[in-house]
């Protein structure tokens, strides 16, 4: 069942300087479907548009970010809500209660001069003005307990908690209303390995218990390999490959995905690894055709002229590359 359908969304950062219009095409024609009860990973480097895509999905579109075309359609409890058209009140109802958003540095949203309990209280009160303190106490404690966090954190100030604990408290706060869709943007970047694993463990536990949809955006391929069910790879504002996690890691087809996975070092293997030559393109002036062609070792003449479309090559497997699509056509 689909929870969210994104249709050919185009979100540009538009600005005008001295009468010269400038469009940074951060998300340029992305289409994808998210199902209920799954973990969908979006991989790609920074400035590939993954954070912008998440912002669009959350309806947090503020100038200079402008939606130029496309739809973001939530299908929750039989209601169809197009975030790109919705008014402020609809969005307010949707946010946090149905769809929540965990930011990269969400641990720093905790107010340093208020105890965690007060922060939870302020947050709950803002969304459920009629809640009584006894019920609040019970739901909050129950929620922390389910997530395996000690109730004593409620009586702590943020500075008394470790970084990983703060991040987990922030995640608990974002999920207190049991949202149907959780958007997590780099939830563990800048945390160390042990804590990272603890935080991912928590996210996965929330997903397994509430059977909701978790979208996890990160450049760390290790995270996708470990917790995602399906992975979409973005490059320069476009989705270039999508598939189930085993297929993506077992047999990456797009040259960019292949490079991304093979360039990672592993313990026990000191052999030389190379980064991808060149740098990600400037999205204000992307290269014509396939946006990866200037860095691609297999680029053909057609790659610099025509942009490959994201085509379905097998069940649940989509790819935007002339080379891979041709190979596949030959096989079949």
């Amino acid at each position, binding site marked *: 069942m689909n929870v969210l359908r994104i249709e050919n969304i185009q979100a540009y950062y538009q600005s005008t300087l001295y009468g010269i219009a400038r469009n940074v095409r951060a998300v340029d024609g992305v289409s994808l479907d998210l199902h209920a009860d799954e973990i969908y990973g979006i991989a790609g480097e920074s400035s590939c548009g993954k954070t912008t895509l998440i912002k669009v999905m959350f309806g947090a579109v503020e100038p200079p970010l402008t939606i130029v075309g496309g739809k973001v359609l939530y299908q929750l409890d039989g209601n169809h809500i197009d975030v790109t058209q919705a008014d402020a009140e609809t969005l307010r109802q949707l946010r946090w209660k149905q769809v929540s958003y965990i930011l990269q540095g969400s641990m720093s949203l905790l107010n340093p001069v208020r105890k965690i309990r007060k922060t939870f209280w302020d947050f709950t009160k803002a969304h459920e003005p009629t809640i009584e303190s006894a019920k609040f106490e019970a739901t909050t404690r129950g929620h922390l307990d389910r997530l395996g966090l000690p109730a004593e954190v409620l009586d702590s100030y943020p500075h008394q908690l470790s970084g990983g604990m703060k991040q987990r408290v922030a995640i608990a706060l974002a999920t207190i209303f049991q949202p149907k869709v959780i958007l997590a943007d780099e939830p563990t970047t800048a945390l160390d390995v042990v804590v990272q694993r603890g935080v991912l463990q928590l996210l996965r536990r929330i997903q397994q218990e509430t059977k909701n949809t978790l979208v996890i955006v990160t450049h760390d391929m290790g995270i996708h390999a470990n917790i995602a069910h399906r992975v979409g790879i973005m490059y320069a504002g476009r989705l270039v490959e999508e598939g189930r996690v085993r297929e993506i890691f077992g047999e990456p087809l797009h040259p960019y995905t292949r490079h991304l996975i093979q360039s*990672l070092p592993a313990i026990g293997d000191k052999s030389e690894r190379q980064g991808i030559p060149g740098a990600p393109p400037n999205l204000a002036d992307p290269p014509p055709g396939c946006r990866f062609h200037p860095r691609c070792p297999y680029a053909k003449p057609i790659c610099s002229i025509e942009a490959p479309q994201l085509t379905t090559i097998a069940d649940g497997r989509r790819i935007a590359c002339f080379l891979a699509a041709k190979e596949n056509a030959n096989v079949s």
Partner: protein
Amino acid sequence: MSHDKALLSIQNITKIYSVGGLFSRERISAVADVSLTMSAEEPEILTLAGESGSGKTTLARMVLRLVEPTSGRILYKGRNIIGIRNRKEQMEFMQDIQPIFQNPFETFNPLKELDRYLFETARNYRGREEQSIDQRIESVLNLVGLSMEEIRGRYPHELSGGQLQRVSVARALIASPLLLVADEPVSMIDASLRMSVVNLFKSLKDEHKVSIIYITHDLATAYYISDRIAIMLRGHIVEIGPVRKVLVEALHPYTRLLKESILQPHAEASWDEEITLSTMEAREFTRLGCKFAGRCDSRLPICEVSDPPITHVDEREVKCWLYVEQEKHRVVSSL
């Protein structure tokens, strides 16, 4: 190794922070009695690894003289650098040891053009002839894969994290340092560019004979580039030795936990068992005995009460009672 030959020799260094209010003051040893040596003859990359709050950044900051240690000595080429007060000595020291910080977006002032940092550093260390400054800057930028064209007149927000971090490395290289102290230099950089920055460090060591203290929690890149690794926990070095030994056949239970927590990018990587995290850092800091005892699977009664000594086992130093006991057994059985 004699201390005169050492490039950097850290001797029993301790940093104590006092936290809390007037009445509930607690003393936390961010770095507790740490000693290590880096050789001057052969450049090496030494990794400091450990979770946040393990003291790796404090240790690096003491080497950079950004934090004054509570006790202990840091000898750079045989000279104690802790008491340096006069500007000339300070400049000499800074010429040789340069920092690279974790977050390139915080390293640079957002209201200042990037090339001004490069020119300032070049003027400070390279005299004032405009021509040689330009050449020097161009050559260090080329070394990190950038050019002056891309940097001139740009503000930090106009560049990506990877590019900014390269500017940060280029700036450090202007002074031709002998030692770089890089605090989590790639944690904010993209996957496709990360390896090029990591390879850059490797080539700095191999071709330009620069020693590097590389602080990271990414053990895979640590294994890839470093020669030695020190695993830190709550202010102590719990295991130090050649990276091939420490990461492949980990001895200390904490090193094993770190190794198990790595997310391997394989198709069959998914893990199932859950791990225990510490809730409050302060409690582990003030523990008697081994700081890891609260989370350790193989703890002995002695771990709770007494701090383990450093033992030499299999080319490395380990701070764990398990190996002290083994050592005792070995001695007893050989008698």
